[in-house]
């Protein structure tokens, strides 16, 4: 929509009773459907990315939910092709906030040795919670071990490397999209991705999932 059209729509907005302006329009349903499809397409991968960084199921769910809410509240009226990089940028900020909060909390808890962190009781339950029925137990065990090893290796990567690697290899974004999501240059994305691959390869070796 052009700037003129935007202004025109603002000035033509009907004034409702009680001093409020109702800005609901008929496009809401269409936007909602498109946004629903988009969020449904990213929610599982987003959860895996958040879980890989936070290693905590509830925190990962919270991070994804917050990212969904913020995208809906602030950017729903942006072009649909912008949603993916915006969503992952919001998600990464949320993950970083949670990591910082966790660091501060750990520092505080260090002064309270008698305190027991209740959140830790939930523990980290890797993806092996619900194995597929199509694989044999032996194969399932191999996959579980490989996934656990990969998740641990991913978790130990620096944030930017992990982000670049997962957006490329799990979300399937190209370098330009990852650069937009990470707020850096394409060259930086390539560097982060290359270093992530190198570190993972050095750690996991020739594993065979």
């Amino acid at each position, binding site marked *: 929509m052009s700037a003129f059209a935007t202004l025109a729509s603002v000035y033509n907005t009907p004034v409702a009773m009680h001093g*409020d302006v109702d800005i609901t329009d008929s496009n809401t349903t269409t936007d909602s459907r498109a946004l629903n499809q988009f969020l449904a397409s990213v929610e599982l991968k987003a959860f895996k990315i958040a879980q890989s960084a936070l290693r905590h199921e509830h925190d990962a769910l919270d991070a994804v939910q917050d990212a969904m809410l913020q995208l809906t509240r602030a950017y729903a009226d942006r072009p649909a092709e912008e949603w993916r990089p915006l969503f992952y940028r919001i998600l990464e900020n949320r993950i970083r906030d949670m990591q910082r909060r966790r660091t501060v909390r750990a520092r505080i808890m260090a002064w309270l040795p008698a305190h027991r962190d209740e959140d830790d009781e939930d523990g980290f339950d890797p993806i*092996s919670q619900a194995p597929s029925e199509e694989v044999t137990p032996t194969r399932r065990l191999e996959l579980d071990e490989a996934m656990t090893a990969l998740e641990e290796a991913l978790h130990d990567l620096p944030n930017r490397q992990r982000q670049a690697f997962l957006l490329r*290899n799990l979300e399937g974004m190209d370098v330009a999209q990852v650069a937009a999501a990470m707020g850096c240059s394409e060259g930086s994305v390539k560097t982060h991705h290359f270093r992530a691959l190198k570190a993972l390869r050095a750690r996991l070796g020739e594993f065979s*999932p």
Partner: protein
Amino acid sequence: MTSNDEELDDFEQRTRALLQESVSRIDGRLRSRLNQARHAALAELERPRRTSFWRSFGLAPAAGVVAALALAVVLWAPRPGQMSPVAEGGSSAVEDLDLVADGETFDLIQQGDGGFYEWAVAQADAGPEATS
């Protein structure tokens, strides 16, 4: 492409397959939670966004400044036919505000120590010989 790149590509393909497998194995409970989160987010979109009349014209900051100025005028301006509180009692309006805001002082007055103040005023009216 070098052989090293080919190895990296092979490694990348295997990690990618493993990651996709891990996504496909997310259990129904988590899928349901994510589904609920998505619908909660979309409910925000369905809700009519109602904007304050003042905000719609960008007047909220101006209204705040006007309100603050009006309050300042009420507090500091002397009433007609009355001396300024500062000139009269040597205390400023800010101190008056502190007095009002001081809950402890207010409680003291409410607790019935009015007798002491009445006695002190009577002593002052009687002059210095009454206190000696």
